């Protein structure tokens, strides 16, 4: 089992045993080589100094002498080498090479090969250790413990991180399912036992969240995943399992859940507030307004000029209060009931104009709507309100001496449409270009231009919700230009937005 090695003591350079040097083999070969070189030099010298054919017999003498010299040198080197070997062995305390080896393996080649094999094995083991250490490190960083179990033999191994997650020390316990079940929180133990039973019997993959109790009593939340693979006969053979500590993640999830619940609660509260505003606040207002009217009726003949004026203020106050509540309600309702679908901008403009029919006729206004308006995605009702407010404003804030002229334009701006509502009215001073979109923000005295200051705030909220932007566009000449963008594709509202 590969993972068992992870717990072997770390092998470092200092603890690697030094291979026993075989001096015999080296000296024997060295002496032979020296003799061969010596003979070669001599032969060259003889060849060049006595080129005479007659003395060729010297060559033959050399031919006989060379092997003899080389062989003797070899044997000499060997003998010296073996002695040095024995001396060295005696020095470092290891047993000397057996006497028999002197004849069966005089060069010590078998031992030298052994040595080579051992070194190769050691370097391979070191590489394996390194890769295992890397895996173990990765497990530790990922806080992911792995285990593997042979289902036929029941033998299992746990990685170091597996132990660490359970709060156990590697080697201090048996890597058995029983020991694992003991770590599982009593409340989750029965369920876990059932899962282990089923994984032992069927193939496939299972995932479960469960609690454990560490030996120090700390309860942690884990995510476990078990996968059973089959042998060739299709029987469950190996169980590979991972466990991951998700305590922190769960805590954050719970926190998030709490926040979402809180958000829902505050949304509910807001809805309740809107309901109360629409009902409970308007009821007394209606009573005040109605009875003032009735009083006015009854006292018609006997009321003086000032009293009539006071009555007028009361009725006006009631009416304004009612409009404020209605507008505030409309503002709070934007985006509450979402009915997003494709619709044509032309239809939205048309129904806004139908609602403004009286204002248009009364002010003798001209309204030009661009011919080709696109199909948009969003809430059609909100888009109608948007045009109703923008065109309504263009009609309301007109110059006293000039009939209003309003135009609705649209241009393609890549991934969005750019709309403009242009008028020839009193305009919006550049220093108020931002302010006009604030709720209850008004630029004019009530007796000049009637309004609650909610209209453009509603427009902005509608556009924000659909992922567009609106601004007062600077331009030369009289009037105001309100430009807003509307994304072409369905807009995905940001989470929490």
């Amino acid at each position, binding site marked *: 089992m590969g993972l068992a090695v992870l717990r072997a003591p770390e092998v470092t350079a200092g603890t690697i045993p030094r291979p026993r040097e075989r001096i015999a083999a080296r000296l024997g070969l060295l002496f032979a080589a020296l003799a061969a070189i010596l003979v070669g030099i001599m032969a060259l010298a003889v060849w060049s100094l006595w080129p005479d054919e007659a003395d060729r017999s010297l060559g033959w003498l050399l031919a006989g002498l060379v092997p003899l010299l080389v062989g003797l040198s070899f044997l000499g080197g060997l003998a010296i080498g073996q002695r040095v070997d024995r001396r060295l062995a005696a020095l470092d305390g290891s047993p000397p090479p057996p006497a028999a080896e002197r004849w069966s393996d005089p060069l010590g080649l078998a031992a030298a090969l052994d040595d080579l094999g051992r070194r190769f094995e050691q370097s391979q083991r070191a590489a394996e250790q390194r890769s295992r250490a890397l895996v173990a490190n990765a497990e530790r960083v990922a806080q992911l413990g792995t285990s593997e179990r042979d289902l036929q033999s029941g033998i299992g191994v746990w990685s170091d991180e597996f132990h660490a997650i359970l709060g156990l020390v590697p080697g201090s316990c048996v890597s058995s399912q029983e020991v694992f079940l003991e770590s599982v929180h009593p409340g989750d133990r029965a369920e876990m036992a059932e899962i282990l039973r089923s994984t032992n019997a069927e193939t496939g993959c299972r995932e479960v969240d469960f609690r454990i109790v560490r030996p120090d009593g700390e309860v942690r939340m884990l995510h476990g995943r078990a996968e059973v693979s089959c042998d060739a006969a299709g029987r469950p053979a190996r169980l590979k399992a991972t466990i991951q500590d998700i305590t922190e993640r769960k805590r954050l999830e719970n926190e998030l859940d709490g926040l979402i619940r809180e958000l829902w609660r505050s949304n509910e509260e807001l809805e309740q507030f809107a309901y109360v505003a629409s009902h409970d606040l308007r*009821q007394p207002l*209606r*009573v005040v307004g109605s009875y003032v009217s009735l009083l006015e009726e009854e006292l018609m003949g006997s009321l003086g000029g000032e009293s009539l004026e006071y009555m007028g203020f009361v009725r006006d106050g009631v*009416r304004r209060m009612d409009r404020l509540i209605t507008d505030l309600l409309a503002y709070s309702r934007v985006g509450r009931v979402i009915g997003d679908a494709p619709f044509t901008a032309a239809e939205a403009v048309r129904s806004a104009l139908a609602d403004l029919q009286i204002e248009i006729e009364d002010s003798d206004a001209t309204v030009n709507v661009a011919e080709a308006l696109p199909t948009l995605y969003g809430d059609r009702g909100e888009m109608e309100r948007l045009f109703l407010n923008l065109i309504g404003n263009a009609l309301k804030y007109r110059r006293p001496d000039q009939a209003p002229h309003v135009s609705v334009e649209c241009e393609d701006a890549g991934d969005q449409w750019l709309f403009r509502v242009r008028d020839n009215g009193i305009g919006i001073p550049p220093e108020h270009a931002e302010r006009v979109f604030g709720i209850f923000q008004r630029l004019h005295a009530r007796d000049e231009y009637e309004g609650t200051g909610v209209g453009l705030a509603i427009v902005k909220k509608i556009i924000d919700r659909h992922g567009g932007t609106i601004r007062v566009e600077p331009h030369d000449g009289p009037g105001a230009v309100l430009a807003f963008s509307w994304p072409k594709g369905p807009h995905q509202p940001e989470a929490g937005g």
Partner: protein
Amino acid sequence: MASKDIHDILLVEDDPGDAGLVRIALRRSRHVCRLHHVKDGGEAMDFLRRAAAHGQAPRPDLILLDLNLPGRNGHEILEEIRGDTTLSSIPVVILSTSGADRDVKKAYALGASSYVSKPMDVEAFTAAIHSIEDFWFGTAQLPP
């Protein structure tokens, strides 16, 4: 014209101001009506079942029911009326300040005959009451 000359209307309304507006509107009506005013749902059910102090109560031709009532709300009263076989045929008009979609939907789902939002000013309020009367005591045929 309907068969009866005098119509009995049961008004379930806790706000004396609003009740007064209904009374004034009916006084100016061309129909002859008797207005019976109760202040909450319990009293309304007593009136309809001729219980407690309402032993001599007539069976109303029309019920004007407010939604926002102390104790049981208008929706609950409507449900109880519609669930009672002896009362279920009486037309019930919801008269409420609320124009909230969910209130309107729920009222119709529970069997309201119609739903009228109380208008803000007195002329419109009177006109609304008159049109209710005109419809139920003029145009519509009431249950026998």
